[in-house]
């Protein structure tokens, strides 16, 4: 019986780990983290809900931006963090204005 219980716990733990894996970038406080390393947004694509905050952490020694063509822009200095609060219309492609080969995508989900 004990063995069975442990097994069930293990199964639950595995399930929880899998769930955590699918929302790797999401923290408990409604902040979605995107790292910038070696001139790339990681992850490049994120799913967020309106009202949540995206936080970029720039680990490069270069200044970057998250820029939406014809829309908002966030400056992310080297070694710093910067945030953007997601609105309903934020399903967008974005890029770095200084290095336009760096591309990211935000998808707003319900």
């Amino acid at each position, binding site marked *: 019986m004990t063995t069975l219980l442990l097994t069930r716990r293990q199964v639950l733990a595995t399930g929880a780990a899998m769930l955590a894996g699918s929302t790797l970038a999401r923290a408990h406080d409604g902040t979605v983290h995107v790292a910038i390393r070696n001139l790339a947004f990681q992850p490049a694509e994120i799913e967020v809900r309106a009202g949540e905050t995206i936080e970029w952490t720039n680990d490069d020694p270069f200044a970057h931006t998250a820029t939406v063509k014809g829309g908002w822009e966030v400056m992310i200095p080297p070694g710093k963090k910067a945030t953007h609060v997601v609105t309903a219309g934020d399903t967008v492609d974005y890029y770095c*204005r*200084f*290095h336009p*080969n760096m591309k990211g995508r935000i998808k707003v989900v319900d």
Partner: protein
Amino acid sequence: MKTLISTLAATCMALTASFALAADKPTDPQIAHIAYSAGVIDVEAAKLALQKTKNAEVKAFAESMKKDHEAVNEMALALVKKLKVTPEDNATSKALVKAADEKRAELGKLEGKAFDKAYIENEVAYHKQVNGALETLLIPSAQNAELKSLLETGLKLFQGHEQHAEHVAADLK
């Protein structure tokens, strides 16, 4: 305009010739010197632009070039120190510096919009040439894995600069 185009073409040819000189596989100390020199050249061009331009977009571009190339050259200096490699001056570096000195003298004579346009067009051409050299010669020739990796970061960075310069060039038209 005709003069500008022919000068640009001459610069491109000079650069191609400089890199062609190194066709017999440069060594790691030579590669380090070439990459570092290429960075210094763009920092110098950026400093000239910051003195001369009145265009906000060109100024932001030049500031980004100065900071990025200084940062990547600091990484390069730290790496050669760690690897105990002494960068070695060579024909390619010399030809690059010579072509850049001539270009900078020429840009120095221009003012206003003519300067902005010529500076940005040269930035597009220069990054294109450097990226071509990185891809086809410097990265494949590099023996040390860390040097190769830094050159690959440099390539990504400079490909970004090339696109940024193209965006600015399009806005200046």
